[in-house]
C-alpha cells in the first residue's frame, strides 16, 4: 500500500472539485477500495472521503412514481427499505444475496456498482498478465482457467465478468444512475453504465475522473420482479450466473419483461431479444418462455471451459421469470 493524502469533503461541490484532480479516488464504504489498495490495483495519491456528505443516503419516492436512492445509502438499508421490498423485490433480493451482512452494513449502493471484476488473475496479489491490471500485458485467463468467465461480449483482451448483484437488478429495472461532475452531471441508463472490453479493456465503466454517483433512480414500481443467484455455496459468494426478471403482467400474460443476466459479461447482460418475444407469452408456458430466452443466446460465445454456463444461464433466466410471476402484484 502506498501512502496517500486523506481529505474529507464537506459539500458535494467541494467533492467533485477535489475529485477532478488526477490520481484521486472517492472513499464511500471503503469495502472495495481497500482491496484495490492492498492488492496494488489502485494507488491513488489522494483519497476523498465522501462517507459523511449530507443528503446522499436518503431513499425517497419520486413525484410521478419511482424511487430515488441516494448513492451513499448502505446496501442493507436499501434492501430492507419498505418501499424497495414492496415495489422492487428484485433489487432487495439482489442486495441480500450479495456479500455478507457485515459488508452490506458498510458498503454503499453507489460504490457497489463500481466493483471491479473478481477474475482471479486480476485479483492476484502479484501482478499477472492482465489487460485490466496493465494494458497490453495480455489476458492470462484466455488460455488459463476460464470456467467462470464471460459468455457474452468478451474479447481476446478481456474475458472477465462484472460481479455486482444489484447492478443486474438495476439493469433489468431500467434504472438510471445519476452523477455529478465539475462539468455537469449525467443520467446514465443502468444497462449502459459498465463497459465491455471492446474499446478500452482497462476501463470498467463510463465515469470520468471526478464524476460521482449521487443517486440511483428507479422507474415505476415493479412488484412482479425477482432475482436468482447460482453459486456453489449458499452465502457470501459471487455468482456463477445470476438472473433478474421484471414483469408487467395481464393475468397470466406477460405484457412487458425486463431481463438481465449477471456474471456472464463485463456488464449486466440485457436479454433484449428475449424480452421482445416474451411480450404476449403465457407465463405458464415453459416452452414459449424457453424459446423466447433462446433468442438472446444466439450471440453467446463460450470459452474453452465455460460452455456449461450457457445452459445454466438459460435455466436461471427461465426460473427468474417464473419467480417474478409468482410475486404478489
Amino acid at each position, binding site marked *: *500500500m*502506498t*501512502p496517500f493524502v486523506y481529505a474529507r469533503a464537506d459539500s458535494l461541490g467541494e467533492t467533485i472539485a477535489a475529485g477532478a484532480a488526477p490520481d484521486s479516488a472517492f472513499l464511500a464504504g471503503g469495502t472495495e477500495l481497500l482491496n484495490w489498495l492492498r492488492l*496494488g490495483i489502485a494507488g491513488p495519491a489522494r483519497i476523498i472521503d465522501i462517507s459523511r456528505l449530507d443528503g446522499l443516503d436518503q431513499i425517497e419516492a419520486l413525484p410521478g412514481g419511482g424511487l430515488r436512492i441516494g448513492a451513499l445509502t448502505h446496501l442493507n438499508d436499501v434492501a430492507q427499505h419498505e418501499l424497495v421490498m414492496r415495489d422492487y423485490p428484485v433489487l432487495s433480493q439482489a442486495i441480500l444475496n450479495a456479500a455478507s451482512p457485515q459488508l452490506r452494513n458498510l458498503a454503499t449502493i453507489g460504490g457497489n456498482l463500481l466493483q471491479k471484476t*473478481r477474475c*482471479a*488473475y486480476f*485479483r*492476484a*496479489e*502479484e501482478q*499477472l498478465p492482465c489487460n485490466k491490471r496493465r494494458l497490453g500485458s495480455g489476458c*492470462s485467463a484466455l*488460455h*488459463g*482457467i476460464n*470456467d467462470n468467465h464471460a459468455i457474452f461480449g468478451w474479447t481476446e483482451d478481456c474475458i472477465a465478468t462484472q460481479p455486482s448483484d444489484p447492478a443486474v437488478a438495476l439493469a433489468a429495472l431500467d434504472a438510471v444512475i445519476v452523477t455529478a461532475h465539475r462539468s455537469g452531471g449525467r443520467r446514465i441508463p443502468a444497462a449502459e453504465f459498465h463497459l465491455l472490453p471492446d474499446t478500452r479493456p482497462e476501463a470498467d465503466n463510463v465515469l470520468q475522473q471526478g464524476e460521482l454517483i449521487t443517486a440511483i433512480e428507479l422507474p415505476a414500481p415493479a412488484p412482479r420482479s425477482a432475482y436468482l443467484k*447460482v453459486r*456453489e*455455496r*449458499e*452465502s*457470501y*459468494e459471487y455468482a*456463477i450466473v445470476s438472473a433478474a426478471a421484471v414483469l408487467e403482467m395481464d393475468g397470466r400474460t406477460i405484457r412487458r419483461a425486463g431481463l438481465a443476466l449477471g456474471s456472464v459479461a463485463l456488464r449486466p447482460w440485457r436479454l433484449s431479444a428475449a424480452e421482445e418475444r416474451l411480450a404476449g407469452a403465457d407465463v405458464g408456458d415453459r416452452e414459449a418462455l424457453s424459446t423466447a430466452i433462446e433468442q438472446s443466446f444466439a450471440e453467446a460465445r463460450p470459452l474453452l471451459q465455460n460452455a*456449461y454456463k450457457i*445452459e*445454466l444461464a438459460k*435455466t*436461471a433466466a427461465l*426460473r427468474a421469470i417464473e419467480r417474478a410471476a409468482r410475486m404478489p402484484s
Partner: protein
Amino acid sequence: MMITQPVARPDGGVKVTGRARYAADYFAPDLLYAVLVTAPAPAGRVTSIMVDDALAEEGVVRVLTHEDMPKFGRFASPRAEPDTQTQHAEGPPAAQSFMPMQNDEIRHEGQPLAIVLGETLEAAEAGARRVSLRYEFAEPELPAPPEWTAIDKAAVVPRESGFLFLEPTFTKGEVDRGLSNAAAMVEAVYLQPSRHHNAMEPSATLAEWNDGELTLHDATQHVYGVRQVVAARMNVPAEKVRVISRHTGGGFGGKGWIWPHQVLAAAAARIMQRPVRLALSRANAYSCLGYQPRMAQKIVLAADKSGKLTAVQQDVVNLTTVTDDFVEFATEASKGLYATPAMRLSQRVERANVAMPTALRAPVEGPGTWALESAMDELAHRLGIDPLDLRLINHADTDPATGQPWSSKKLREAYEEGARLFGWRERPRKPQRDGDWLIGYGMATCSMGCFRHPTPAAEVRLHRDSTVLIRTGTQDIGTGTLTIFPQIAADVLGLPMERIELEMGDTQLPEAGPTYGSSSTMGVGAAVLAAAEDARSQFARLANLPPDEVEMQDGHIRRKGAAGGQTIADVMSHTDIGEIIGSGSFDPAQHGKGLAMRTFGAIFMEVGVDPGLGLLRLRRAVGSYSAGRIVNPRTARSQMTGGIIWGWGMAAMEQSRHEPVLGRFLSKNLSGVAIPVNADIPGDIIIHFVDEVDEHASPIGGKGIGELGATGVAAAVANAVFDATGKRIRELPITPEKLL
C-alpha cells in the same frame, strides 16, 4: 466423575472476546516486521536482486537475500532408522528438506527469495513492492492434466526419504484369482484437487535472540518440533531454543510440521540482532505452507454374488514437489476397512514444480475413504445390495492387512445406531422431489488409523490450597485439550474444574508430542492421567493411606467406599510440603502390543440437487462413531460436527486450483477459494458415539476423534448425489458444472 461429562470449554470466553493471544499478538521492544518477496514463477533462478528502491522507503531497515543467510543445518528426522538409506534423510517434524534462500534457485512459485525488514509492517510491505528482481526462468515441470492417463504416465515410485512412512506397495493373497472369480466388479478412477488448510490464523513467528538463546512465539501444532528443527537449521543446541505457543488459531495439519518461514524468522532476527516478526500473508499461506495434494486413485473392487469382496486393487498417485516425495497413503483405508482375501495396493507420486504438500485433516483415510467408499457404493448398486448391507457383509472382524485382532471395534453398533437415527432402512427408494430439488440419500464408512505419539512427561501439581496445576508442553489448537486435560485431573483428584489450572504451549514445560493425527487425548491425556494418579498416590502416603485403595472426591481423600475422609488442607497442614508434584508419561509401545488400532464410524447424509442450476445442498446428516471412551461429549460433538462440515467442504466446493500455464495456485486468497459458510450447514446434524472403552489404545480408554469425522463424508455426498440424480460423480469437488 468428570470424565465423560459435557463440560463447557474454559477457554471459550477469552477466545470469543479476543483476549486470547496468538503468535502475531506478541510484541517485543525494538521489533522489526518482516515481509517476504516471493518467486513469481515456478522454476529458474534469480540473477539479481536490486534493493536500493526498497531501502529508500521510509522505515525500511534492510533487505535480506540468500547472500545474507547463514548456511542452514540439516535436520535428520528421528524417524529415520540407522543402517538404512534414510539414515540422514530429512523428514518430520521438518515439513520439507528444501530450504529457500540458500542459493539462487527457484523450485516453486511463491518461494521466499528475499525478506524486507521494516520498523512498521506498512514500511516492510511498501519496501517489498519495490525490491526488483531479475530472473532466468526455466521450463517448469507442471502438474499433469487432471485425468488418469496423464497422471498415470507422470507417476513414479517414491524414493526413499523421511516422508516415506510405509512401504509404497502392499499385496496380500491372490488378486488375479479374486478378480477372475468375481461375480461383479467395479473399476473406477476417483480424482480430488489440491486443498489448503485455510486456518483462520495465518502462520506467524516472532523470533528474539538474547545472548545466543532464541525465543520463538509461534503458531504451531508442535512446540517441541519447532525447537528441534529450528535449532538444527540454525546450528545451535536445542536447549538454546525456547518455543512458546499459548494458542494456535487452527491447525488442521498446516502447522503440524515446521516450514521454512519459522527458520527464516530466526535467521533474520540473528542477523539483525533485533526481534523479528514474520507473519505470513494469506497469499504466503498458500505457497509457503503445505496442502493436501491433488490425487488420482484407480480402484478395482471384485465381489462374489453374495457381495463378499474377492479382491481389492488400488493405485494411488499424489502430486508432490520436485525436492521431496510426500506420499499421501490413501491405500491405508483399503488395508484397514473390509475383509478381503486379496489386495494389491500401490502408492506413487507425480513430481512437479509446486510447493511441498503436507498432511491435512483428514489425511490418509480422508482421500482413501473418498475413493473406497464411492467404489463400495458403486459395487452395491451393481450387485443390487443395500450399501449398508454390503458393508456389513464385508465387515472386518480382524485387521484385513495383518490379521491382528482389534484393540476395540464397535462398528456394527455404529452402523446400526446411525441407520436408526437417520431412518436409513426406511428411506424412500423411489426418486424424491422437493420443488426444483431432487433428494438423495447416501452413506459411507468412516475410519482413521490411530497415531499415537509418546509423551515423555507431564506434571500435575497439587497445592496446599486444593488447587491443581497441570504442566505440559503440548499446545492448544482449538480442539478441546484445554477442557479435557483439566477434566482428567479433576476426575482423579476429586476437585471441581475451577480448581484446575493448565499451563501449556512452552518448551520450558514437560515435553509432549505434536497436536496432530488426533493423538492428544491418547498421548498427553494418558500422561496427565498418570501424573494425576501419581499425585494422588503421593498424597495418599501423606495421609497414611494405601495409595492403591484410595479415592478422592469433593476435596476429600478416603479409602474407596468409605465415608467422610480428610480434606486436602487437613493432610497438607500436617506437613511442610507446599505442593505435591505428580509426574506421568505415555509410551505407546507399552500399550496394545500386537493389536490393530483404528477408529470407525458411519456417516449418513441427505442432500438436495437442483439439476437445472447445478446446485448441491446438504439437508441433514447423522454421524455415528466407534472411537473408544469419549472424555467430553460436548467438545467431542463439536469435533465431529466440524469434521462433517470439513468433509462437506471437500465434497462440495474446496479446491486450490493449479494454474496450468503460470504454475501457481490460481487464487491465493479466501475470496477465490470457497469453504463452507454457516448458511451451507443445516442444524439437523446428529452425532452419536457408541458406548465403548478401548483399554489398549491408551489408559484413557479413548481414541483420537479429530479427523475421523472428516472421513467418509465426500463419498457419502457423492453417493447421495447418485441416489438423487443417477449421476456418478468421481471428481471432487461436486460443483455446478458437474451436475448440469
